């Protein structure tokens, strides 16, 4: 049985093909304003990569899930992230997903979602915060993690609001703070926002970090310090939601 999971997020769309429960192909592309077209494109690319032309079932998830008209059904990204995280790390009890413009914490009991909280009203605590700060510092987003690792200390970023935090970063530069320290401070600011949200549900180990931001090692360490717990990262953190969707397509 070949199934597809398509996760149309705010910044990227991901598609995963599963054959008899094994990942055979996946793709991550940027989202265009036309969500339907984006979904078709990422699905088409994955089919091409796998060298097949049709699948048995398709499940869509993510903010754009209702725009994927060729999907057999939709499942929310909450359920999909939980299922996907369990696929990669079966001992997962808490999933922290930091997406492009939202973040969520899901607690899992007996293999099912028990409780969840989401932040999607504010860019603080999301990938967008990192993007804005990277651009204020003229850095590439991929570099941020490595730069933060070279910090001597973390500059305190007090503003919660992303826009104000950006001005704060600029004023730290003006007062001569090292870029490395500021970048470390940015990671701590996000970690503290996420941890505050996570405390509204039960945070039990194993804690799994998913979403594109999970590729950033400094982010992982900042969160571990903030929560006082070890965090596990799936092999491909960005496709966890799509994998979950594909698993729902199997059942």
């Amino acid at each position: 049985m070949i199934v597809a999971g398509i996760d149309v997020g705010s910044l990227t769309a991901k598609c995963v093909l599963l054959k008899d429960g094994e990942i055979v192909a996946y793709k991550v592309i940027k989202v265009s304003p036309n969500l339907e077209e984006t979904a078709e494109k990422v699905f088409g690319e994955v089919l091409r990569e796998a060298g097949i032309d049709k699948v048995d079932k398709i499940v869509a998830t993510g903010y754009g899930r209702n725009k994927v008209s060729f999907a057999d059904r939709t499942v929310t990204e909450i359920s999909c992230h939980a299922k996907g995280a369990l696929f990669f790390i079966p001992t997962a009890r808490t999933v922290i997903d930091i997406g492009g413009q939202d973040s969520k914490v899901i607690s899992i009991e007996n293999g099912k979602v028990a409780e969840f909280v989401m932040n999607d009203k504010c860019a603080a605590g999301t990938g967008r915060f990192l993007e804005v700060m990277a651009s204020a510092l003229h850095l590439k987003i991929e570099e941020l993690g490595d730069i933060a690792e070279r910090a001597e200390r973390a500059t305190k970023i007090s503003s919660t609001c992303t826009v104000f935090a950006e001005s704060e970063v600029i004023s730290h530069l003006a007062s001569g703070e090292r870029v490395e320290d500021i970048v470390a401070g940015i990671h701590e600011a996000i970690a503290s926002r996420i941890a505050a949200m996570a405390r509204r549900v039960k945070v039990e180990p194993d804690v799994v970090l998913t979403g594109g931001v999970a590729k950033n090692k400094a982010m992982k360490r900042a969160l571990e310090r903030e929560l006082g717990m070890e965090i596990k990262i799936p092999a491909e953190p960005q496709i966890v939601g799509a994998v979950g969707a594909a698993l729902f397509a199997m059942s």
Partner: protein
Amino acid sequence: MNVGYLCTYTPKELVYAAGFTPVRIFAGDEHISLATAHIQSYACSQARGSFERALKGELDVQAVVFTRCCDTLMRLADIWERNTDMKVYNLEFPSRIDEKSRDYYFRELQDFANTLKEWGGDVTDESLRESLKLYWELEEKLKKLFEVKPDYEAAKKVQEMNVRDAIEFVDSRLKKVEKSGKGPKVLITGSVCPFLEVYKLFEEAGFILKDDICTGTRFFTFNTPLKEIESVEDGLSFLVEKYFNKAPCPTKHFPNDDRFKYILELAEDCDGVVFLLLKFCEPHFYDYPQLKEKLEEMGKKVLLLELEFPISSYEQLRTRIEAFYEVLA
């Protein structure tokens, strides 16, 4: 004259008996701008949004009655009085509901009747008897309608109508209503939510609804059977009884924790409970952690949805509601 009110502890029966039309004031769905000159942005958006409509001249009301329910509405009363041409009356509804406060509330109702007289309305034995009867009829019919299937559109509409028209309107809905289908049952609890799209999101996700919302079931749940009254005084005593036994809200204090008991009882036949809370609503948010704990002890799943009026993104709400459905289904 139309007399506006925001809180369901307002004795509309008395207003109607005086020959005026009680009209509920809801927040609008436009951006709040004028009101920000008078109320800080960390006050609840029901207060700010309602006042915005008053300042914009959208409200066809000539007087407003406040009931001293929460801090924000108490202050709003003063702000309203200074910044609109409407008459404003503060009915001091006791916040502690017990034997000692009965007499106090009775005297408050007497004072209110006198003020209504100054406004040109006369409460008589006959008019009060009639008004009590009509509101009883409306409440019973709404109860019947909600038992078949909650109809938030009807509940909202009747609060902006004359009670006679309201009864007729509910009658027409009762003729058409069909029983809800099958699905997990959810209790929605919170302050006010006049935005019907929110309830629709729950229905579209597949939920069967039950509520403890001030613009829904709490508007018509009073728990005091109608009684024939001999005099206005008699009628006022009846109103004390009626409003003291009303579906409770967290702005009131009860000697026996009535509010918690009421919620836990409502939740008994539900699979989950959704707290639909307005950002900055202190009375509801202070209760939330403890109530959540008690509900979870009962084995109920709990979801907190924080709203701010006007609601900017229904799709984000939809994701949470659908995810909660997936948790329960």
